[in-house]
């Protein structure tokens, strides 16, 4: 069974500082994986390496069996991988509808043409409208993206991410900065739009993680120290130590 996404001994150093020290991961198609880990573990760097924002120092990244490490972001996107960003990355001066339409243009094959009017691209317009409704921004269809609320911008970000029909979706802390109700709504949205796709998401909210993920990958100090089902991760001693320090060990000691 080919994996949708695979990391093989991925390493990344900035100068002499090693951030990622041999990460290994094999994500099956259609799986939902949550990536957790202490701050500074390198989760966002991993995402940047996978999506092409950074080039690895060594190691391989494979998308559906093809190597994508070292490729440019737009090349990787065209191969079927799409990502969202921790800090909202949208087109601020375009409207919600325009944002989403731009996101579908390439996947529908419109490339760099200047010989057709946007208004005549019925499939692009229909898909964009569908996405607008799906992310719940129908009431703000023609509002400039910079004028949306934070949660609305995050929703738009998700919309842009899935617009192109990519099969592998990377979401970098999608619910960062949201209230509990917003988060719950958002998770439902994520679950709906990534139905049948492979999902990797970096998350800090454990409720979200344990509710959404099929498997959890724990990243500590640039390595994937565990990659298993939520229950197994909960019971994993190494994970507990990484999160709780050696106090567990001390408590066990003290009990003797």
């Amino acid at each position: 069974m080919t994996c949708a996404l695979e990391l093989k001994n991925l390493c990344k150093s900035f100068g002499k500082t090693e951030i990622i020290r041999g990460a290994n991961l094999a994500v099956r198609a259609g799986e939902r994986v949550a990536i957790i880990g202490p701050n500074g573990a390198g989760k966002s760097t991993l995402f940047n390496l996978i999506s092409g924002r950074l080039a690895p120092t060594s190691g391989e990244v494979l998308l559906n069996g093809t190597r994508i490490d070292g490729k440019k972001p737009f090349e990787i996107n065209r191969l079927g991988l799409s990502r969202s960003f921790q800090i909202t990355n949208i087109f601020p001066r375009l409207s919600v509808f325009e944002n989403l339409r731009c996101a579908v243009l390439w996947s529908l094959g419109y490339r760099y043409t200047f010989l057709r009017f946007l208004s005549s691209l019925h499939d692009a317009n229909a898909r964009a409208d569908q996405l607008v409704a799906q992310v719940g921004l129908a009431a703000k269809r023609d509002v400039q993206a910079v004028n949306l609320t934070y949660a609305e911008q995050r929703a738009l970000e998700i919309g842009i991410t899935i617009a192109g029909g990519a099969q592998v979706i990377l979401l970098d802390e999608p619910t960062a900065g949201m209230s509990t109700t917003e988060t719950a709504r958002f998770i439902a949205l994520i679950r709906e739009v990534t139905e049948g796709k492979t999902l990797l998401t970096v998350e800090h909210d454990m409720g979200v993680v344990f509710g959404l993920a099929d498997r959890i990958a724990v990243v500590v100090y640039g390595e994937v120290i565990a990659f298993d089902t939520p229950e197994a991760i909960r019971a994993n001693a190494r994970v507990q130590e990484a999160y709780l320090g050696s106090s567990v060990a001390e408590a066990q000691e003290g009990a003797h």
Partner: protein
Amino acid sequence: MSASTMTTARGRWLAWGGLAAVLIAAPWIFRSSLALNMLSQMGYLIIICLSYNLLLGQGGMLSFGHAVFTGLGGYAAVAAIGYVDGHGVAFPLVLMPLVGGLMGALVSVPLGYVSTRKAGTTFAMISLGIGELVVAFAIMLPDLFGGDGGISINRTYGKPWGGITFGPQIQLYYLIAAYCFICTALMYAFTATPLGRMLNAVRDNPERAQFVGYNTQLVRWYSFIIAGFFAGVGGALGTINFEIFNAADSLSGMRSGAYLLFTFLGGVTFFFGPMIGAVLMVLCTVLLSEITAAWLLYLGLVFVLMIMYAPGGVASLIMMNVRMARAGKLGRFAGLYGALVLACALLMLGASALIEMIYHMQLNAAIGSEVKYLGMRLDAATVAPWLGAVAVALIGALAVHQVGRRFAHAWGKAQEEIEAGLQHGGQTA
């Protein structure tokens, strides 16, 4: 790019019909030969400034070397006319601007490739360097590019085209006007194509554009070539108008700077902004320069003030008022506007009196110390006019400060009301 004024079909017909009507009727309203000259210049400068804004306003690419493309377009036209005239080939003048456009596009291919690899400030510097390179290159080859004397042509070469020789300025004006209309329409159409829209996206967020599958460099490069085409067309019309090409002038950095300055003054955030900029450019260079020797200083001051207080240019100022009027709230500003105008007038009176006197002392001191200012005679050798000017300027400055503050406050409140109304209505302008 906001197109809210033209979203209805009726609005579209009105706008384009209006433009056509203005282009056709203008020489009949302004009948002097000076006016005709100015209108002709405005015609092709509109094309040039719009092509410049394709880069700046639409693509976020600040170029200090646009004169390269307009100048080389002009050169191509001149060279082609020289060839056609010398060899008796039948190639009418009406097609010559297209030759210029082709040259502009051709040159944009390699130059654009090198420039568009980077964006933002690096792009700006590269454009400056390339501009200097091309000028230096052209000056080095006087045989090819005409040297100090330039290359002259006769635009009435060959047989008349349907009875038209293009000798009289009015005939050339209508040729320019036709190209102006067509090019404006084409460039507007560009904004509504996938490439045009992705150019905006790349301007707003190049990283995100990459992550939706687009090679941002290609988007910029292709748009650069299209802008180069229209720049070449405009430049060709310009050289045909003056019937001379001079490398040091047509390709100069000064000219690039002028395109930048006036396009920005007109407004880069609206499609029609550069058109206003082109009109201002002709008015300033032809009329203002006659009225006062200090016109460049005034221009620089207005430019800096615009950047600080109205970065969207004249177009944005107009649209802000249009928006306010549509919401029915413009009326309440009548009094404040009056006060603001008065205050600004005072400030300008005092400041310009000072500037005019200084300029006079520096440049025309030999003539005597009397300065003719708005019908008054100010003796710059005495203290009185200086004190008076300073006093008026200070009072004006204070007034502008006070009224301006109140104006901004009231305007802000009105804006909030509009926003609140929109939130309730669930729509937006």
